[in-house]
């Protein structure tokens, strides 16, 4: 989190993350090219590079897509999410190299513009077998470009979280286009079943993980706490809370994170103001609630980020009766200070 925009706010975690990306991508490219040269010594070197970058971008898009649901299923994958946008930008760059080289190699020697050639060389849109698969790759690359270009927090802030999220759902369309680009392209020309098997495993994993994680989330959304006569929700007895952590309560419209900090209890919206991360799955670090996704922080009593930061989330009123915590399900405006409930927790001094 930061108060001003910079191209990249480097920190040790981001540097380590990016270093791993660079090492793995370079290693893959070297391994792919070396293996291919041994198996197919006569393959044209440009075609070899095109294939290396194409296959790498295919692997990267799968990685990018499975990180989200994996994190929803297990918090141990959260370190992968922290700098996922750099993985996404890497995917675009690798795909762009594949695309540009393909355009030059397969359309660059004609007497027309390469883009005109791309769209006019093959116009058999009515034939699945002869479908102009390169066009599918072009549109997928265009979407990846928009994803990469708007991945910065500047765009997230200025476009608004909801619109930004909707825009980035386009990645799913790009994924379908990439799958069909491969299926109607190289799969039609190759006899080896390996690529088909890998692709099948890849999309099965992506779809299954998203459906399992999505179903788990929908189930949680349906678990609504009982309302009492005074409109409050029973959130639980105080001994259910771990110190520095939250329990998430559902009021039927949204999720609310009730945190315990020592003997004090406070409630804020579960949705981080940055990218909508689940605040209730985070922890209290140095006295402030810390989002598990990107480390955005909020004060426990008013849901405001500590100065000089300006993010804020809605707060909720709590009350305690006989070591039981009750929640007022109606949110206060974002950044509203609320009374901190102090309850003696058994076993605590």
């Amino acid at each position, binding site marked *: 989190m930061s108060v001003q925009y910079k191209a990249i706010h480097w920190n040790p975690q981001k540097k380590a993350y990016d270093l791993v990306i660079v090492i793995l991508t370079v290693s893959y490219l070297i391994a792919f090219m070396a293996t291919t040269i041994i198996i197919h010594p006569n393959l044209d070197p440009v075609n070899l590079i095109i294939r290396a970058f194409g296959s790498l971008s295919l692997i990267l898009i799968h990685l990018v897509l499975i990180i989200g649901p994996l994190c929803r299923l297990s918090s141990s994958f959260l370190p992968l999410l922290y700098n996922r946008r750099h993985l996404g930008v890497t995917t675009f760059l690798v795909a762009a190299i594949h695309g540009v080289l393909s355009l030059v190699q397969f359309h660059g020697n004609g007497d027309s513009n390469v883009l005109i050639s791309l769209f006019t060389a093959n116009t058999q849109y009515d034939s699945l077998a002869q479908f102009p698969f390169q066009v599918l790759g072009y549109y997928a690359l265009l979407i990846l470009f928009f994803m990469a270009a708007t991945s910065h927090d500047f765009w997230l802030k200025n476009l608004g979280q909801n619109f930004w999220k909707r825009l980035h759902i386009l990645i799913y369309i790009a994924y379908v286009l990439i799958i069909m680009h491969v299926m109607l392209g190289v799969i039609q020309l190759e006899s080896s079943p390996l690529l088909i098997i890998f692709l099948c495993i890849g999309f099965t994993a992506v779809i299954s993980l998203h459906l399992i994680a999505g179903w788990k989330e*929908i189930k949680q959304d349906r678990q609504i706490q009982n309302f009492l006569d005074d409109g409050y929700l029973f959130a639980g007895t105080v001994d259910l809370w771990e110190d520095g952590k939250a329990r998430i309560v559902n009021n039927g419209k949204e999720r609310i994170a009730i945190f315990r900090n020592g003997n004090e209890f406070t409630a804020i919206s579960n949705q981080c103001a940055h990218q909508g991360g689940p605040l209730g799955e985070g922890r209290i670090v140095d006295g402030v609630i810390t989002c598990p996704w990107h480390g955005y922080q909020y004060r426990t009593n008013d849901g405001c980020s500590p100065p000089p930061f300006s993010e804020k989330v809605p707060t909720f009123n709590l009350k305690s009766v006989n070591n039981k915590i009750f929640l007022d399900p109606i949110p206060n405006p974002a950044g509203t200070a609320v009374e901190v409930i102090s309850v003696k927790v058994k076993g605590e001094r």
Partner: protein
Amino acid sequence: MNKGQRKTHIIIWMVLAVCIPVGFISAIMVIPDKPMQEDVFLKNETVLEEISKEIVKDNLIVLIRNDKAKTSYQLQLLVSTPFKQADIGIYYSLRNKFDPLQSIYLGNLPPKGGKVFSLPSDEEFSDRIHIVLFDPIKNELINQIQIEL
């Protein structure tokens, strides 16, 4: 994410769970019977000793080679002026009108230099054959050479 976004996501993935496998299976079903065989067109052939036919057409020198017993044949293509196409599929056809699905795919020819391809066995061999150069990327016929043996 909020409740609405979570719902949108699962709906999208339920749709994709149907669309992607349908697209995948459809694409598998239209894979041609004679897909390009990487191991065939990249294999280095040993050149047979006798030349039974030699033709020069456009930027190509075409040689039909055979062994002494005339039991196996080869097609040797030598490129005098490099092609502009990156991918040139070489097909063997017995028909005048070229159809990739009705022809035998021999392999790929590099844009410059040359290459030797094994020709089909005796039973598929005929007195008149057609060697077709086809760009599979642009789906374009580059050249067709008729050879009388």
